[in-house]
């Protein structure tokens, strides 16, 4: 039986001039980039989309692993890869000059490729023009906030940033306040915040910036245009900082059989051309200075990135997740 399966499916042995990409990033988002790269270099890119368990899979494959590039969506996941010992450092002047120091590993183990901000969705007629994350706990929003599960990495990253600013004790108080203001269970996805604002369930929501591009552009269908237009987007900041951002990024696998080609692909991904595709295809902020964001995203105003380094934020993730449990955020 197993032999029959083996015969029917392609063997896992990689040929030359190929790169094997393991990604937790949805394949549709990077397909245009990989296509452009293959076209210009002639190098084929094999992909496998994994959601959870990227680090575990590469670790268990060990030295036999065909993986060259490991791509992940959240800074925490990238750090996990390093902690599991499945990455290797890369010294590339191209990568180092394109990506701000704050957005890559100090030792060259991972690099950010695109960025998204945790922004405020507000009802069109709401009287808000600026917003601080701190205000989410303000009792005036009681029963008015929509947000997804507090255990989702997008939210734990935001809460971890709060810990980086104010410490765990203050964050717990703040989270308790936010919890008390929720209009419904902390559940669903980010776009539900916009949809629920349209449906009258809540007045404001916290969600990712790029969903607004997806909704308003009509790429998700005409209904989503309605959701996207029911809200206005405000870039919130910490009182003593900027807007919280998270990244998607990549690392070179420790046992990469095609390292040279793999580094070339990473370098291509931070080129002006690729960064522009990122911005247009997925409405993310480019990590490379000088590349413009999509007009929908640019319309939110100028993004002022929070000053806390990603590596510090990531170190508070576990604590943030435990605080979510402690205040019963999702209950």
């Amino acid at each position, binding site marked *: 039986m197993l032999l029959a399966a083996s015969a*029917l499916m392609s063997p*896992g042995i990689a040929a030359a001039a190929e790169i*094997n990409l393991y990604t937790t990033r949805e394949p549709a988002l990077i397909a245009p980039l990989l296509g452009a790269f293959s076209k210009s270099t002639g190098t084929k890119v094999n992909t496998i989309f994994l959601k959870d368990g990227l680090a575990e899979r590469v670790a268990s494959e060990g*030295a036999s692993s065909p993986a060259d590039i490991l791509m992940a969506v959240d800074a925490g996941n990238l750090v996990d890869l390093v902690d599991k010992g499945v990455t290797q450092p890369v010294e590339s002047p191209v990568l180092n000059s394109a990506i701000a120091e704050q957005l890559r590993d100090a030792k060259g183990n991972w690099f950010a490729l695109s960025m998204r901000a945790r922004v405020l969705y507000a009802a069109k007629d709401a009287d808000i023009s600026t917003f601080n994350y701190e205000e989410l706990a303000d009792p005036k929003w009681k029963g008015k906030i929509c947000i997804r599960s507090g255990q989702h990495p997008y939210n734990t990253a935001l809460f971890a940033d709060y810990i980086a600013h104010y410490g765990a004790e203050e964050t717990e108080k703040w989270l308790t306040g936010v919890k008390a203001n929720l209009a419904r269970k902390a559940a*669903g996805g*980010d776009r539900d915040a916009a949809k629920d604002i349209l*449906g009258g369930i809540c007045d404001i929501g916290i969600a990712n910036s790029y969903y607004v591009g997806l909704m308003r552009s009509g790429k998700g269908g005409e209904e989503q245009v309605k959701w996207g237009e029911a809200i206005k987007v405000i870039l919130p900041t910490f009182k003593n900082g900027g807007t919280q951002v998270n990244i998607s990024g990549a690392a070179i696998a420790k046992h990469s059989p095609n390292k040279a080609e793999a580094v070339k692909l990473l370098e291509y991904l931070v080129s002006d051309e690729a960064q522009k595709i990122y911005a247009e295809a997925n409405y993310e902020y480019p990590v490379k200075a000088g590349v413009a964001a999509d007009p929908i995203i640019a319309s939110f105003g100028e993004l002022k990135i929070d000053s806390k380094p990603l590596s510090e934020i990531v170190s508070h993730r576990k604590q943030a997740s435990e605080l979510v449990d402690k205040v019963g955020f999702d209950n």
Partner: protein
Amino acid sequence: MITSQAPARSAKRPGGVWLTIAGIIALIAILPIGGLILEASKGSAGLWGHLFATVLPVALLDTVILLAGVGVITAVVGTTTAWLVTAYDFPGRHALEWMLLLPLAVPTYIVAYAYLDILHPIGPVQDAVRWLLGYESPRQFRLPDVRSKAGCILLLGIVLYPYVYIPTRAMFLTQSGNLVDAARTLGTSRRAVFWRVALPLARPAVAVGISLALMETLNDIGAAEFLGVRTITVSIYTTWITRSDLSGASQIALALLLIVVAIVAVERWARRKQRYSIDVRRMRSFQPRRVSLGKGIMLFLGGLLPVILGFAAPALYLLIEAAKRYRFAGISSRIIDEAVNTLVIATLATTATVILGLLAAYATRLRPGQRSSWLLRCSTMGYAAPGTVVAIGVLIVLGGLDQLIDRAALSLFGVSTGLLLMGSGAAVIYALIVRFLAISAGSIEAGLSRISLSLDHASRSLGQSTAGTLRYVHLPLSKAAISAAALLVFVDCVKELPATLLLRPLNIETFATHLYGEAARGTYEEASIAALAIVLIGILPAMLLSRIGRIR
């Protein structure tokens, strides 16, 4: 007739070879759990203190309420619909027989997503309600949110009831009509026959069905997450993904597994002395009673309700979304590859799972007793563990094996084999076997248990070997149970997500992995065609299943 007897103990017991086979199957199934134990033993400082203080009180309560609710709904809907199509004859009965299976085709996470949209304040239902009541905006009037425990219980119950309907109906069908006749002659009313004769006899089947539905519930991560219900399975995920603590997650998973095993053991113990079988020589099929047209229509509509809620509404929603998507973007060229991958993986896994399940169940019949019973329990443990957890266990075991093979080949022959098991897709098939062996072994065991042991004795005394008896006596008599098992496993393999997602080779996508890829970033609409394909693949087996049931 009904016989209640202790396990047969003839002087000459069939060869220990069957026990060995059962042992090997149990080992195959339990290896990944061994991998988990290894992972769990790495320790996780401070985890349990945190869990006891903040997570478990809520998660345990939510899980228990969810299980109890789903158990009651699936039991009530599954048995009443099974009785409905068995005991009464009314227009549309034959169509209803297979339509009642349709909710099986829809994965729980898709149903949750569909209902979130259908019942949303800006969705069709609430729009209609507001229009009827004369409200203009959702801010003036809206229905309770489906994102709640109650919502989750109703949704899971209405999708999972076929797990009870299928074995229960098979049991009703093969119950001797003589028994019902006898009861009727003694003046028992039709309704009382259900309560006093049919239901008690079907109890093992109902129990198997409920336990399958509850396992599916425990496994569910998508629906619970969408609807904001904090089950233990969600906690395992949080521990693993958000806190990057795989060892801790393995520990919680193992604890959960222990609880499930304990429940199953108690259930088994409670009916340890019961053995139901029928005298197949005098079996006469159950004659449904024809009812008046008015009553018939009522019965039909009543039976149709779970079909509408558990299948038609979400499927219609998917159809509309898929049509929109098709007009918007056409059909992806990858859809053919995805279809082939889905079917090949599901077919291979189903074949293997059913063969192993049959062998395991038959070994238990030949060598009844503590040992074989425990081996069977071990073989079916994979179903109790959440899919991702099994996948991780398989990963740990096969990943290690792959490296071992690769290194050995390199040192012996100077050739690298690469990843033989992971790279070929064998790992996916293995994980599916581990996950679904419980369904095949359970259904087949229930089927075999209806065949009187005297037939085994007769066959053996006429000189047939145990294998021959299996071939000429048991296989023909339990064809329906085996086919039912195969179809259930097949549909489950098509829907299965976590193991396929984690263990498949490069460049291989199935409908489910494609769907999940889109769902993961919230762009379900792009995957509505793949979702619809999963449902369509599920429909065909549902119809076949009902035919098999009728032919018996």
